[in-house]
């Protein structure tokens, strides 16, 4: 049986870590390589870097961050943000990332999921989904819609359909982010998460809304997510990864407790 995973997410802009609240008011909180090392030593099971660098000519900075991270931590980590082509994937994977995640690029051109899976294997390809709750309609029968641009642009795509389609195309994992819950610290979107974990047979990482260890335990044990993404609750020292894992493990969900 696998242990459930705790995955800190580091938003990186031009080589510096930031944490945006609802994607606004980003503030710098440190060097990503140092933070990666810190989380590795605290028992993080995996890490996610999300590159929010705006201009594409500064993307090489991220490749350098990936390379330096890979020299310092020995757990899997993935990189998302700005990945638009198989060549982008290749650069990140060769720099030392275990996985790449595609989000809006896959919404615009879903073939990139299949192309990436063929080139590198499904286990390397994570589909990032940004989702908002909407009224149930003929077009959006699940009541959850895919959005891009930090939630500003509605794509008219049903989230449940998209998760299944991504699995069919060869995605190896889904990172499911609720824009409604993101930054609230009031807990993950449990209904959405359970709906997606029931629908697909690939791992699902729940994202958006974690504020307490109990929120994470609930999404893993009750909404059956395979992993919980965390950010602000550990970035600012409110909790340590170790404290979170101890709480969840004590309450009956297996965690990796030795690292």
């Amino acid at each position: 049986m696998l242990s459930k995973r705790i995955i800190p997410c580091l938003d990186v802009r031009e080589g510096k870590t930031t944490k945006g609240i609802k994607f606004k008011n980003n503030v710098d909180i440190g060097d990503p390589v140092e933070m990666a090392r810190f989380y590795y030593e605290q028992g993080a099971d995996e890490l996610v870097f999300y590159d929010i660098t705006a201009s594409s000519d500064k993307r090489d900075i991220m490749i350098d961050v990936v390379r330096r991270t890979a020299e310092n931590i020995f757990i899997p980590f993935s990189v998302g943000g700005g990945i638009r082509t198989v060549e982008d994937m290749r650069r990140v994977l060769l720099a030392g990332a275990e996985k790449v995640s595609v989000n809006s690029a896959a919404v615009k051109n879903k073939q990139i999921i299949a192309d990436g899976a063929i080139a590198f294997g499904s286990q390397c390809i994570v589909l990032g989904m940004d989702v908002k709750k909407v009224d149930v309609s003929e077009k959006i029968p699940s009541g959850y819609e895919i959005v891009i641009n930090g939630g500003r642009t509605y794509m008219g795509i049903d989230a449940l359909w998209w998760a299944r389609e991504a699995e069919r195309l060869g995605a190896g994992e889904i990172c499911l982010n609720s824009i409604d819950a993101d930054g609230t610290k009031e807990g993950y979107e449990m209904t959405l998460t359970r709906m997606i974990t029931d629908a697909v047979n690939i791992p699902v990482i729940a994202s958006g809304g974690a504020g307490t260890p109990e929120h994470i335990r609930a999404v893993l044990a009750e909404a059956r997510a395979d992993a919980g993404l965390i950010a602000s609750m550990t970035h600012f020292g409110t909790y340590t990864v170790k404290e979170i894992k101890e709480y969840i493990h004590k309450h009956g969900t297996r965690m990796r407790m030795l690292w």
Partner: protein
Amino acid sequence: MIAIIDYKAGNLTSVERAVRHLGYSVQVTDDPELIRNADRIIFPGVGAAGQAMKDLKAYSLDVLLKEAFAKKKPVLGICLGTQIIFDSSEEDNNTECLGLIPGTVKKFPSPLFEGAERLKIPHMGWNRVQFKGNHPVFANLNPEHEFYFVHSYYPQVKDGHEELVAGTTQYGITFASAVARYNLVAVQFHPEKSGSGGLTILDNFCKWSPSC
């Protein structure tokens, strides 16, 4: 020098980085001379068995690997590298493999259950290994150490050769996640991605003098 065999099967740099981090001299190579002169050999790999065997043969690396094994050089297989040291793999229509360990590589049955829970395939994430015996490469580990796995096929040692199983893992079924034979050890998980427990295994391997 430790040679990591390069047969274009996936990204080998993470193994190289981990071994270098431990302070050993290491090189990713397909050069027969370097491989012949290496003190020990790591044989990793990510991908499918059929293509891997084709590529190995195209570079004549299959011969070099068998030669290294016969010459008692320490060899470490990782993930796909482990699978293709068996006799054959069900992957890609029964691929004939290197035959250094008697047994076959099988696809996880589907659906796969543990209790009432349906398990996902590939087996991807952190799981435990129950090590058997006291092989030096698996020394100084705690039963609570977990290791990072990513695979859809699993190795099965041939009946009557159970002594070659150095560790088992439970995922719906119980499979051999570590095997050892003479100067060869092989693991299904990724020690280079498995935190301190994985680094311990790599370090043990780099210091190991097989007594055979």
